[in-house]
């Protein structure tokens, strides 16, 4: 697998999401409504060697993508790792108008952002029951905002990965990975809350190499079914693992957190949310000391 950036800036703080405290998330959300604050933090991160960011198609992603595209330094030297789809948006919409209409409306967006043929092809595959073709077109529609950007890898959101995993729809993982690799020439990765179960499923499908992103920290926070089993799974041959929630939502001091992560040579990249310059300074130093 191609080498990925060592440090990926996480999108949550910049999008106002804090899994431990909605109040803190809201404070960050208000701060980064200001485009200058976003530009400032992206440029600072870049100056410290953080030249990549993971992001979903949250409404604020477009603002960030515009900043990167127009910035004289960032535009040629910043890699984006899209995360598809932005599940919250679809959950809200499908509660209102049903899932079929959500997919139909989404295909309609291709008419404006993509091309008429994409829309027609998507609609005919949806109506005709060509499921995998529909999935590929939906991926392409979600990828439209990223078309002028340098890509590192593309990830499927855990909301969808874990649903497909539980429902036994695991062929969707092959379809996703193969389409991303073929069309976008980057690895297709999976985000999950259930690493051991996912890897067992991929093994049964004959996968020999995996790109997986998941919560990983020494306290076992957000890790299912157990830290012990997840550690064991990480050591499998062919594993490319990107940890997130490394600080366990602030419960582990950064030094301790990255020393722990550093014990796993399978970890070559890490995703970490950073919204303050002092935090960037400290985190970058610690990651460079502990992850080779």
């Amino acid at each position, binding site marked *: 697998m191609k080498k990925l950036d060592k440090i990926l800036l996480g999108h949550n703080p910049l999008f*106002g*999401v804090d*899994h*431990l405290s*909605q109040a803190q*998330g*809201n404070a960050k*959300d208000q701060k980064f409504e200001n485009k200058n604050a976003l530009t400032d933090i992206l440029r600072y991160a870049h100056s410290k060697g953080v030249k990549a960011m993971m992001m979903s198609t949250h409404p604020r992603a477009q603002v960030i993508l515009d900043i990167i595209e127009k910035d004289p330094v960032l535009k040629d030297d910043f890699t984006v790792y899209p995360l598809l789809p932005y599940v*919250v948006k679809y*959950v*809200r919409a*499908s*509660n*209102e*108008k*049903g*899932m*079929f209409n959500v*997919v139909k409306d989404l295909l309609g967006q291709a008419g404006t952002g993509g091309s008429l043929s994409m829309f027609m092809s998507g609609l005919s595959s949806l109506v005709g*029951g060509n*499921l995998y073709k529909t999935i590929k077109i939906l991926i392409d529609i979600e990828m439209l905002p990223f078309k002028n950007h340098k890509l590192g890898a593309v990830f499927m959101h855990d*909301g969808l990965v*874990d*649903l*497909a*995993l*539980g*429902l*036994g*729809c695991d*062929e*969707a993982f092959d379809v996703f990975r193969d389409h991303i690799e073929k069309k976008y020439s980057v690895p297709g990765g999976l985000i999950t*809350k*259930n690493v051991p*179960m996912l890897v067992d499923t991929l093994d049964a499908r004959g996968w020999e190499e995996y790109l997986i992103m998941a919560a990983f920290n020494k*306290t*076992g*926070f*957000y*890790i*299912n*079914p*157990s*830290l012990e089993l997840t550690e064991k799974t990480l050591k499998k041959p062919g594993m490319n693992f990107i940890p997130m929630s490394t600080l*366990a*939502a602030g*419960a582990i001091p950064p030094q301790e957190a990255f020393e722990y992560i550093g014990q796993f040579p399978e970890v070559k990249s890490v995703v970490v949310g950073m919204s303050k310059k002092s935090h960037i300074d400290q985190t970058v130093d610690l990651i460079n000391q502990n992850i080779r």
Partner: protein
Amino acid sequence: MKQEKLKIGIIGLGRMGLVHAAIFNSLPESEVVAVVDPALFPAKPLQMMNPKIKVFKSIDKMLKKMHIDGVLIASPVGFHIENALECVRNNIPFLMEKPLALNAEQAQPLIDELKKNPVPNMIGYMARNIDSFQEGKKIIDSGALGKIINVKGTVYVSQLFKQGKGWRYDPKISGGGVLESQGSHLLDLLYWYFGPVKKVNADILSVYSKGIEDFSHVVMDFESGLKGWIDASWSVRFKRKMELKIDILGENGNLAISDDSVDLFLDSPVGDYKKGKTYLSANELFSGVHIDISGAKFTYQDQEFIRAIMEKDSTSPSIHDGFHIQKIVDSCYESASNDGAPVFIK
């Protein structure tokens, strides 16, 4: 010999139907063999990707064609009772998404049928399975707080800032607004903690919705003599996810429970609980589950239902518990329509 897995049927393949289907299909003791949904999407694509799952247009057709050990009912609220009655008449255990029904009157035939044929049954008030609220229950039951003086609860989410679309916002199918939808989680937690409610005074307000409430405030008297109030709205800002909070004032201290923390203060130590402040964060409360899809609370809930089927046992919370919550909600609407006059739970 390896024991055969319990065969689960899913009624209604909306978001909650999908989440439960994914959990039941991956638990070691169960598998999903059928889904019932009159809409072809997403049922047909699901069947294409997992051919072991058969799709039916009605519960009746599913039960005629398949052997089913348990059913998950996640249809729109207005259809809950007819689906559940079909299960009871066929001796099939069921787990029903909350709330129980459009109103208690609609639910009465199910209660009567269950008295005659008490198949394992459960209602989906999943907040009981959130780690922090479980811990809260232990503290309250320990008596550490001393005599409870009063209790207040809030539930807020940023969901609706214009007229909503879909069945949730149509009172003929949903039965009500935020009080019936999210407020009932809070009512269930307080009922679980402090027992049945005797009387309510309620006030509701519709700002964005027609015929259902966006804001509700309820003053309640429990049968135990305890008094409390709740406030619920789906139209407050900066609540990305539903946020439940309960504050309890006791003679020996305070307890504040939220979705991801437990904050206890005691004047004097009681049993394992020390004097002063004890704070448990999401991190300390977390424990891994077999599979996490949209939160461990749903996994715990589905495991409890599987246990009830295997042991032919009752569950927490049962349909009977859901019936009490439904009567509280109905009484709140009655009170609100009479300018907040007190209404006794029948």
